[in-house]
C-alpha cells in the first residue's frame, strides 16, 4: 500500500477511535444525568436516607461530604503550604530535598485503599478515634497532602527569581518575600489546584469506608453543640459520605430502591465534580486577570 493511503487510513482510524471514546463518554454522563436527575428534587437532597425502605434521601450524606471536605482542606492546606514553601524556597539542592520529593511522589501514587487502611490502623484503632469525621478528615489529608504540596511547590517555582530578588533587595526577610510577594502571585494556580483536589476528595470513597465509617446516624440540624452526637458539627461521630453511600447501597443491596437512589446520588456527585472543574477554571482565569491588571 502506498504511503499516501496509509497516511489517510491512519488519520481515519484515529478519528474513529476518538469518536468512539467521545460517544461513550457522552453516553456515560448522559445515562447518569438522565436516570439520576428525574429523581432529583429539593426533597431528595434534604431528607434523610433509608436503610431498607424506599424513598430515602441523601441529606446527611451530602452534609457529611461537605463537612469532611472542609475539614480536610483546613488541615491539608496549611501543611502543604508549609511543605511546598520549604521545597520551593528554602530547601537546598541536596540529597535530603530530593528524598522528600521522591517521598511525595510515592505518597501521591499510593492506592487510596492503602491510605484508608493506614488511617484505619493508626487513627481509628491505635489513637482510638473510632469511625469518625476526624479520622476521615485526617486520612483525606494524607491523600491530599502530596498533591497540594507539589501543586504549591510548582506554582512557587514558576515565579521568576527577579521577584524574589526584588523583595529581598528591599530588606524584606525571605519569609516576608514569600508571604507578601510570591504567594499572592501564585494564588490563581494554587486556587485551581485546591478546587480540583476538592473534586477528588468529594468523590473519594475507598479511603473513607474504614475511617469515617459506613453509617450515618440521623442528624439534628438545629443542634449546634459540637459535642452532641446528633449535631452536624460533631467531629467524633461516624459519617457516611455520598460516595460511600453509593458504594454501600450497591454492595449490600438491602435498600429496595438502591438503583434509583444511587443514580440520583451519582448525578449529584458528577454535577459537583463538574462544578468544581468549572469553578477552578473560572477562578483561576479571573484571579489571573485581576493580578495582571485586567489585560
Amino acid at each position, binding site marked *: 500500500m502506498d504511503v499516501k493511503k496509509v497516511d489517510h487510513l491512519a488519520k481515519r482510524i484515529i478519528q474513529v477511535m476518538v469518536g468512539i471514546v467521545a460517544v461513550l463518554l457522552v453516553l456515560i454522563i448522559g445515562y447518569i444525568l438522565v436516570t439520576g436527575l428525574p429523581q432529583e428534587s429539593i426533597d431528595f437532597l434534604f431528607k434523610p436516607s433509608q436503610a431498607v425502605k424506599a424513598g430515602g434521601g441523601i441529606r446527611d450524606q451530602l452534609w457529611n461530604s461537605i463537612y469532611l471536605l472542609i475539614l480536610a482542606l483546613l488541615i491539608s492546606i496549611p501543611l502543604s503550604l508549609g511543605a511546598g514553601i520549604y521545597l520551593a524556597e528554602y530547601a537546598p539542592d541536596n540529597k535530603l530535598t530530593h528524598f522528600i520529593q521522591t517521598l511525595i511522589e510515592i505518597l501521591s501514587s499510593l492506592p487510596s485503599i492503602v491510605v484508608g487502611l493506614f488511617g484505619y490502623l493508626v487513627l481509628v484503632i491505635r489513637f482510638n478515634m473510632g469511625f469518625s469525621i476526624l479520622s476521615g478528615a485526617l486520612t483525606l489529608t494524607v491523600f491530599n497532602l502530596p498533591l497540594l504540596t507539589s501543586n504549591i511547590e510548582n506554582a512557587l517555582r514558576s515565579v*521568576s527569581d*527577579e*521577584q524574589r*530578588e*526584588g*523583595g*529581598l*533587595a*528591599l*530588606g*524584606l*526577610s525571605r519569609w*516576608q518575600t514569600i508571604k*507578601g*510577594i510570591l504567594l*499572592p*502571585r501564585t494564588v490563581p494556580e494554587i486556587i485551581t489546584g485546591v478546587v480540583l483536589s476538592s473534586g477528588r476528595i468529594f468523590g473519594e470513597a475507598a479511603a473513607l469506608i474504614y475511617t469515617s465509617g459506613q453509617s450515618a446516624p440521623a442528624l439534628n440540624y438545629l443542634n449546634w453543640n459540637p459535642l452532641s452526637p446528633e449535631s452536624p458539627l460533631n467531629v467524633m461521630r461516624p459519617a457516611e459520605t455520598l460516595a460511600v453511600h453509593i458504594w454501600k447501597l450497591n454492595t449490600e443491596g438491602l435498600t429496595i430502591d438502591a438503583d434509583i437512589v444511587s443514580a440520583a446520588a451519582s448525578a449529584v456527585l458528577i454535577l459537583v465534580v463538574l462544578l468544581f472543574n468549572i469553578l477552578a477554571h473560572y477562578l483561576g482565569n479571573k484571579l489571573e486577570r*485581576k*493580578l*495582571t*491588571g*485586567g*489585560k
Partner: protein
Amino acid sequence: MKDYNIVTPKEEIRISTKDLSVKYGDKLALHPTTLAFPRHQITALIGASGSGKSTYLRSLNRMNDKIATVEGQILFENVDVNQPKINVFELRKHIGMVFQRPNPFAKTIYENIAYAPRYHGIKDKRQLDEIVEKSLRQAALWNEVKDDLNKSALALSGGQQQRLCIARAIAMKPSILLLDEPASALDPISTGVLEETLVELKKNYTMIMVTHNMQQATRVSDYTAFFQLGKVYEYDKTVNVFTNPQVKLTQDYVEGRFG
C-alpha cells in the same frame, strides 16, 4: 602604559571594598578588588559580559550570600558589612537595588512602593501617602501615574515599570543605590528618560551602576571602573577613563576593540 590605574576619589567616600573577591564553587569570578565610591556621585562599572562587574555589584548588598562565597571587606558606615553577624535585611534598607529587568510586584502601583516601608514599621497612612508621592516624583513617574495609583503595576510600560522600581527602592530612603544594567530592557526613549532621572537623583543618592552601554556611562557617570575577566584594571574619573585611559586594555575596550 600602566598595568593598573586605580585612583582613590578625593570626595567623601560613602562605601568602599577592600580585597573583595567572589567564588562560585571553586571558580574565582572576581579577583580581590579594592574600590572606593564617592558620595552623591554616579560610578559606572563597565566591561564585557562575564567580566565580574555584576557579581561585584550584587555583593555590595549581599545579594550573593546564598549563591557564592564572598571574601574581603565592604566598608559602609565604618562597619565591615561583609561579616556573618551583619543584619543583611537592615543593610539592604540602606543599600537599595534596581535590577536589569523591571520587576514590579503583582500589586497596585501604590502598594509596590508602600509595601516595604510599611513592613519596616511605617503604619501611618498619611506618612505612607507622602512617601509614595515623593518617591514617584523623584523617579519622575508621578505625573504619569498619579491618577492610577490603585491600578496594577504590571499594566505599566517597561520604562515606567523600571522607574517604578527606582521609586520603590528610594522609598526606603537608602543612602546608596545599586543599578544593575537598569536600561538594558528599555527602548531608547525610555532609556533617555531614565538617564535624566538618574542624574537628577544624584543630588540625594550615591549610585553605582553596571552598564554595557559606554555612551550611557559617559552621559551619566562621574567615575568609571573598567572590569575585565574578573579584575578591575582602571578606576578613575569618567572623563579620564574615556579620553585618556592609562591602561592598554581599557583603551582597547573604550575604543571598541574588545579582547
